[in-house]
């Protein structure tokens, strides 16, 4: 008996773990699905192939799903996300030279993002005085959590990301080389690239993004909205397969097995040992061997992270407005929130469904007011550095 055929696109990153384990550990087959995973080289490819129907589902940056649904900068194709593939997981890595400069200016705890952001603003000011080139920061996509997390962090310290530094898009596999060659001074990217930069002695991990936001939606399982309507049963089976996969991943005893699966060349294709460190949240942050542990570094499956929370979508939309990618309006906000579909998640899992994030502000940003998705104008007015569309 053969299962229902599905083609799913992914980018080789550790937070594609649920997809990979669902297929390679047989959870998808057990749900009657015959999934072909297609490894892609760019988010543009994943988005376009999902949009035109070459993929049935995809591992997608949460903000890309929202941008596609709003038709920002591209074709308007409504996307829905019924399952979070991971929360957090990114880190900010800086070159040894920039690390030394920031540590030279820092007042306070070096893991406190406000202290590093203020130190960065002093570094930026000193460079301007000496007519040095502006610092360049690499991130993975204009509509990416990486872009918004970098901007949120530096702007809190008074650095304008569009005026005071350069922000450039770089494909993740090029990040480490670009840092080593001095093409960028820092970058924000997901696992495993930060660890690889540290292992090669080319960078220091300055922050886990969980220092900046306690909890941020990162990648989602994305499908076209009209596909979800026509294939409700298949989608429910796919959600259940992912739920089982995540149940497997979150067990400490399974970490080595998961790391081995992800390390395969046709999957993520980096050494299992680095993947294990990522899963454990136990990372080498400096070439001298200094380690740092955080249970919030990458959240896969724990704490009901898999259940989509529309407030996370609202926050991402607010960042698009803050940085001039989207206009502010109630209809767009509603459409952005409607991308995250806890109802589909609940329906697929019934009694097994997790409760999701609780608390009034699940984001937990280190600066600015608590996030209120119901009153974006007031929330956004609190940020002095911004780039609103007219």
């Amino acid at each position: 008996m053969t299962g229902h055929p599905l083609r799913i696109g992914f980018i080789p990153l550790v937070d594609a773990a649920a997809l990979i384990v669902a297929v390679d550990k047989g959870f998808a087959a057990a749900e009657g699905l015959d999934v072909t995973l297609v490894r892609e080289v760019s988010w543009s490819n994943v988005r376009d192939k999902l949009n035109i129907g070459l993929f049935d589902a995809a591992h997608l940056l949460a903000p890309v799903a929202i941008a596609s649904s709003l038709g920002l900068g591209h074709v308007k194709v409504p996307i829905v996300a019924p399952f979070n593939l991971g929360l957090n997981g990114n880190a900010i890595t800086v070159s040894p030279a920039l690390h030394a400069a920031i540590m030279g200016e820092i007042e306070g705890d070096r893991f406190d993002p406000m202290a590093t952001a203020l130190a960065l603003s002093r570094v930026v000011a000193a460079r301007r005085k000496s007519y040095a080139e502006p610092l360049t920061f690499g991130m993975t996509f204009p509509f990416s959590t990486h872009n918004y997390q970098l901007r949120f962090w530096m702007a809190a310290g008074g650095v304008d990301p569009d005026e005071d530094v350069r922000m450039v898009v770089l494909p993740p596999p090029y990040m480490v080389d670009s840092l080593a060659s001095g093409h960028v001074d820092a970058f924000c990217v997901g696992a495993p690239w930060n660890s690889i930069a540290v292992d090669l002695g080319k960078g220091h991990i300055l922050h886990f993004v969980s220092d900046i936001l306690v909890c941020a939606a990162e990648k989602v399982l994305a499908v076209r909205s009209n596909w979800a309507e026509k294939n409700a049963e298949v989608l429910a089976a796919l959600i259940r397969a992912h739920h089982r996969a995540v149940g497997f991943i979150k067990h400490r005893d399974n970490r080595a097995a998961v790391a081995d699966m992800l390390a395969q060349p046709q999957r993520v294709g980096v050494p299992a040992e680095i993947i294990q460190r990522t899963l454990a949240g136990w990372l080498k942050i400096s070439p001298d061997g200094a380690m740092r542990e955080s249970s919030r570094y990458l959240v896969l499956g724990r704490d009901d992270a898999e259940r989509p929370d529309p407030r996370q979508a609202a926050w991402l939309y607010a960042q698009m407005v803050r940085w001039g990618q989207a206009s502010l309006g109630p209809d767009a906000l509603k459409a952005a929130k409607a991308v995250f579909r806890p109802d589909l998640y609940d329906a697929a899992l019934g009694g097994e469904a997790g409760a999701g994030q609780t608390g009034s502000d699940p984001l937990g940003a280190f600066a600015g007011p608590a996030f209120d998705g119901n009153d974006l104008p007031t929330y956004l007015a609190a940020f002095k550095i911004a780039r609103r569309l007219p």
Partner: protein
Amino acid sequence: MAADPSPKIVIVDESPIRAAILEEGLREAGFAGVTHISEMHNLLARIYALDPDVILIDLENPSRDVLEQMFQVSRAVRRPIAMFVDQSDTASIQASVDAGVSAYIVGGLKKERVKPILDLCISRFNAFAKLQDELERTKSALEDRKIIDRAKGILMKLKGLTEDEAYVLLRSTAMREKKKIGEIAQSIVTASELLK
């Protein structure tokens, strides 16, 4: 009024052969201003310096994401539009993704003028893929040829067969085992090396 000048076209491709095939096709079709970029460092700066009307990039290139930055308002003077934004022509979008190429149109270049460029790209990309495929097949046929010759030699020596008889034996075994002759030949060569 001045005649519409030939649009400036940039090809972003790390494969020099494919880029050459495409560039030649475009020139033959009368597009004179074609530039090929093969170096991905500082890609945006290179593109801005050339200020093209059309950018063509292969889909195997991770730097496609870099081009997406041009959609952002800040800094860029002229903003491009991805070919995919025009949903009226799904057939050609599908064809271009299948062929593995994507186009970005900068400024107000008219659709009628973009279409022939894109069609040419698709056919040249497909031609290149076919060429590559044929090359692969020729290579593997050559490999097979060599290994079959060695297996025939072993059979002739060990079983005192003529060359024709050795080949017939290989072929009939392959048919019986439902395998390719090359595979049977390979196992004979491997076995004889083990037993040396």
